[in-house]
């Protein structure tokens, strides 16, 4: 059926794959009609998709360093865009983003602007130049541009701190979904999730991760868009929700006026299960100060441009030109999901609060709401809660509470979609969390194996030995992440945002100035990375322990402080020490020109 080179056949391969997946959804829908239980459908969806990823991972196995680290640098732009989008969109984006918009409105949407605007910085400031450099990892660039093991080591440390913060959240998310879909306890489900993640990356490294991520993107985007369009049509809200929900948005505003936001007393709120929230913020009105919005967006944008697992995806393109275009494609594929999240939040909220809709529960009697099937299901899953605080027997807006994940997970059921959609959503969430976890674990393991082990500890190691070390590290890091995830210390979203702040504190300016400021030298970069990370982390610890903070910088935006310290210290220290030698300056000139050989050889 397929002849010739795999790369040339990519559209065909993934076309067949997409068709196969759609056929699978239809078969599951038929099975549901014939009486297959919800539980079995959930297991089928997760097991089937994970098995496919594992097969792709196995087929991509390799023993070559450049295939393992950068997928042989032959990933076409559009496919790299899909892989980056899957790499980027985490379990948090998939499961929690619509919920965040639902509860927090405008203030939260700074994340949408930040997580997309950052790609402009990636495309214009960094990706093409790092591709020209020809590095395997981000610390590889720092180590070669500035020279010396200390700079390289610091870059490895910043990368590890940021990525590890992020990866525990992703393993946590795979565990949550696996435990619901397969009906096993979370502590075991975390390891099931981990094994699935490692199956994709262990044998093929970056090559395996690339081709599984493309497959995961296809699953997650279908799983996100299909319910949004279906719900919108079913509610009669509009055939194409993105362009047609203005009336619904306005209607929510009207209802908010009508119901009013009544504040609950402390005693009443204490009865609400942990993690659930009520609707307390306007849906489409501006409810945050300009600085609160802008500082969060800015932190996320600079963080995006510093996160190594994203940057390293652009090392896999065939050329510098392709790297630039590929950033555009990445953002396009991300845009498809991000622009749908607010629509889902709108549909979800309206369907619950509008008394004139059959699904609306506000204004109904408490007893009636408590007898609805889906309410009982999600109440049991600890994602929904009602209580008659004022004792009038009817449900008011301030008496209804929901978990953030419920917006994505429960809305299909509330809108009356068949269970097959819920199974699909579980598979999509699993794909989103797995693909991000794979990218992150690989970023850490590659930095440790290439930069720490090969470049610093044992430069004479042979390729075979290097790749064994890389794989052992992959497993060790995965297990460390899973062990911490199993302890359930932090929420998914909080730790994701911290990862951005850590990355920007330590890496943003050393990376950007490495390309754009020839005068930047080793001493400056070392000061920038070390002081940036330390001051950012210090600020976080200070605010977490009751510190008041300053300039409105919160624990979610501490990277703004960290990166400012990083910039100042890097510039000052660079200027008071000697300028980089002639060879380094020539190297910077070379990086700025797209044509010609890369700075680092094909095998290094």
């Amino acid at each position, binding site marked *: 059926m397929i002849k010739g080179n795999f790369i040339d056949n990519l559209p065909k391969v993934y076309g067949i794959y997409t068709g196969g997946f759609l056929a699978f959804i239809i078969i599951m829908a038929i099975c549901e009609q014939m009486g297959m239980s919800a539980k079995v459908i959930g297991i089928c969806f997760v097991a089937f998709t994970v098995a496919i990823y594992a097969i792709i991972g196995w087929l991509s196995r390799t023993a070559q360093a450049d295939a393992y680290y950068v997928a042989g640098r032959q990933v*076409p*732009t559009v496919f790299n865009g899909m892989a980056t989008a899957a790499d980027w969109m985490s379990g948090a984006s998939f499961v929690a983003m619509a919920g965040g918009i639902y509860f927090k409105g*405008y203030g939260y*949407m*700074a994340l*949408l*602007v*930040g997580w*997309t*605007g950052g*790609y*402009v*910085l990636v*495309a*214009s*400031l960094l990706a*093409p130049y790092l591709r020209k450099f020809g590095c395997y990892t981000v610390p590889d660039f720092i180590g070669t541009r500035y020279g010396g093991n200390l700079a390289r080591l610091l870059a490895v440390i910043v990368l590890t701190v940021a990525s590890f913060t992020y990866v525990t959240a992703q393993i946590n998310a795979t565990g949550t979904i696996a435990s619901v879909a397969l009906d096993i306890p979370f502590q075991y489900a975390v390891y099931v999730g981990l094994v699935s993640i490692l199956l994709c990356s262990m044998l093929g490294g970056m090559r395996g991760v690339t081709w599984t991520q493309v497959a995961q993107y296809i699953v997650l985007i279908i799983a996100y868009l299909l319910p949004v369009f279906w719900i919108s049509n079913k509610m009669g809200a509009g055939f194409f929700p*993105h*362009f*047609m*929900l*203005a*009336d619904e*948005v*306005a209607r929510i505003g009207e209802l908010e006026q009508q119901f009013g936001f009544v504040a609950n007393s402390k005693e009443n709120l204490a009865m609400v299960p942990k993690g659930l929230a009520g609707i307390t913020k306007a849906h*489409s*009105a*501006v409810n*945050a100060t*300009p600085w609160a*919005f*802008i500082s969060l*967006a*800015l932190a996320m*944008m600079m963080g995006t441009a510093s996160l190594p697992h994203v940057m390293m995806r652009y090392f896999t*393109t*065939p*050329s*510098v*030109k*392709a790297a*630039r*275009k590929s*950033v*555009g494609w990445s*953002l*396009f594929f991300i*845009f498809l999901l*991000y*622009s749908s999240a*607010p*629509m889902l939040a709108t549909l979800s909220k309206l369907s619950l609060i509008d008394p004139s809709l059959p699904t609306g529960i506000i204004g109904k009697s408490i007893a009636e709401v408590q007898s609805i099937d889906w309410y009982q299901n999600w109440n049991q899953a600890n994602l929904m809660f009602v209580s008659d605080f004022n004792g009038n027997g009817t449900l008011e807006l301030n008496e209804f509470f929901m978990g953030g994940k419920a917006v994505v997970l429960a809305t299909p059921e509330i809108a009356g979609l068949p269970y097959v959609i819920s199974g699909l959503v579980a598979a999509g969430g699993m794909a989103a969390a797995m693909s991000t976890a794979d990218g992150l674990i690989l970023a850490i393991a590659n930095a440790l194996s290439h930069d720490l082990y090969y470049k610093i500890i044992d430069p004479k190691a042979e390729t075979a030995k290097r790749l064994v070390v890389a794989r052992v590290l992959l497993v060790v890091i995965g297990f460390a992440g899973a062990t911490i995830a199993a302890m359930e210390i932090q929420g998914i979203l909080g730790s994701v945002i911290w990862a951005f702040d850590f990355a920007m504190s330590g890496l943003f300016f050393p990376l950007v100035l490495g390309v754009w400021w020839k005068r930047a030298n080793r001493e400056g970069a070392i000061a920038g990375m070390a002081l940036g990370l330390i001051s950012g982390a210090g600020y976080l610890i200070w605010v977490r322990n009751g510190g008041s903070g300053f300039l409105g910088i919160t624990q979610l935006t501490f990277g703004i402080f960290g990166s400012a310290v990083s910039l100042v210290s890097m510039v000052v220290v660079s200027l008071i020490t000697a300028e980089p030698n002639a060879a380094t300056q020539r190297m910077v*000139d070379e990086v*700025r*020109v*797209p*044509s010609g050989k890369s700075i680092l050889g094909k095998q290094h």
Partner: protein
Amino acid sequence: MSKQEQHWEKTRGLLMLTLAIWFVFSIGIFLFGAEMNEVGGPFGYPLTYWFTCQGSLGIFVILIFWFANRQEKIDEEFGFSERGDD
């Protein structure tokens, strides 16, 4: 000025322009978020709301492709473009 310096000067010019557009739609307009939201935007959404849902996001996508094309033109002009495909 050498060919390489001229190339870099143009590249830097394009960067500044790109970052200026980026700044307007990621930061600039949100200084006036509350005022702008009183105005009706595309498809009937409140304007600021529309920018946070779709507008800024879509503009970033277009901006990156526009930037990539302009940069390629600059590279070609100075003979620095890579041979081969993408």
